[in-house]
């Protein structure tokens, strides 16, 4: 169940290479950080790993096979700005159940209160919305979660709550996590190892 990047490289149009020859292998249950100054393509690498972007060189494999291009994607991503990741014209219960039906237990671990489900996105705070985005990404077939500055906009308590929940779920399911954050201390706290890009 490894997620592997094999010698991947990427650039936009004829621009300079963002990166080349990147190799990465993540085992189930592992928490791996990706560090590096901005502009090095950390987010692009994440997008490639979750098939939102195709590498110009090299390949990404899951379980030694190409990533599936249909059905539920085993690599899910949660980004920095939850308000940009949800449909503002849907109520929260529709947003939550868009891909699959998260169970009560998951909602409870993530601290999602029943009463929030009847609200519109703009009626929730960033931290509350982000919990929904995490729940949405944690379908039963998610094998790897990519957290790209997932808690950057949140206060320390909300950040710790969300990470505690995610780590608990990851452990239970043997799910791997890729962490991108500019906060060195958070990186240290969470990751088994860190890769410099």
């Amino acid at each position, binding site marked *: 169940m490894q997620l592997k990047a094999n010698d991947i490289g990427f650039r936009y149009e004829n621009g300079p290479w963002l990166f080349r020859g990147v190799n990465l292998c993540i085992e189930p249950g592992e928490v791996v950080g990706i560090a590096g*100054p*901005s502009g090095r393509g950390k987010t692009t690498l994440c997008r490639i790993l979750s098939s939102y972007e195709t590498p110009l060189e090299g390949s990404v494999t899951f379980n030694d096979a190409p990533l599936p291009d249909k059905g539920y994607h085993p690599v899910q991503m949660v980004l*920095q700005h939850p308000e940009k990741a949800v449909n503002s014209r849907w109520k929260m219960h529709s947003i939550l159940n868009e891909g699959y039906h998260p169970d009560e237990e998951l909602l409870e671990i993530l*601290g999602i*209160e029943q009463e929030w489900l009847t609200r519109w996105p703009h009626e929730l*705070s*960033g*931290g*509350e919305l982000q919990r929904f985005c995490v729940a949405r990404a944690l379908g039963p077939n998610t094998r790897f979660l990519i957290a790209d*500055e997932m808690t*950057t*906009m*949140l*206060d*320390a*308590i*909300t*950040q*710790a*709550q969300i*990470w*505690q929940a995610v780590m608990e779920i990851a452990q239970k399911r043997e799910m791997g996590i890729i962490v991108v954050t*500019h*906060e*060195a*201390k*958070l990186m*240290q*706290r*969470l990751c088994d190892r860190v890769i410099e890009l």
Partner: protein
Amino acid sequence: MSILEVNHLSVSFKQYTAGLKQSHHKVISDLNVNLEAGEILAVVGASGSGKSLLAHAILGILPANASVSGVMTYEGEELTPARQKALRGKEIALVPQSVNYLDPLMKVGKQVRTSVQTGDAVQAQRRVFERFRLGREVERMYPFQLSGGMARRTLLSTAMVSGAKVIIADEPTPGLDPVVIKEALSHFREFANQGCAVMLITHDIESALQIADKIAVFYAGTTVEIAKAEDFAGQGEAIRHPYSKALWRALPQNDFVPITGSQPHPSALPPGCLFAPRCAMATPECLQAQPEMRPLRDGMVRCIHAT
């Protein structure tokens, strides 16, 4: 001496719910802060705690359905709507959260020049750009041509050339590189060292502590503590309010252990102390009334049991 004082500020929003029923949501209640010349006050708290609204209230740019009570003074005189309008961008300047505040159709050099109050605008703009390491070519660029860091330095330049005495910076750092954060923060320190009062609004205590003199902790639309930056150290023994302590302990470099629950919504505020539902020290007394801010050990706290 305080340049800007905010006393017992409350802000509510009128909202129409189903059947055109009106409801009032109190988003800020009984809030107090003081800005002093030469000092940086960091305002920290979760999103939804009223931090940005405070900035908007001071600048007089709240939406029309907001009603405001309490007293704000600037240099000892009441800050009326007319005065707010006159001082905005001149003596009280906002460094906004989003680079979307830049005019997309105006070259950035020109935008910065329009904020200059006295003297040669072109010279002032060039001097500040040099200081912030923005090359000569940048003045002829449009906002969309700037990198995130350059755009932020342009916003800072605007505040800088205005000659404002009070700078209010709303979340100026999230998602930036540590190097860039450090740079942005050092600019605020510079503002303060020149005699400005700076209010730095942020959810990031750690960055705030690097440069702030004082910390105001917000919770559910009110101040729960005003402390010296040095009080945030070690296990948080010197911190006064249970919420501020919890915030400190939840940092990754401390315990990384959160308290449970979440900040109440303005539409469902609990009776008494707003933190009571999540407070391990709560007693029946805490539910009687919202505690007043009171002085404690060279700071202020809104908690009847804090020692």
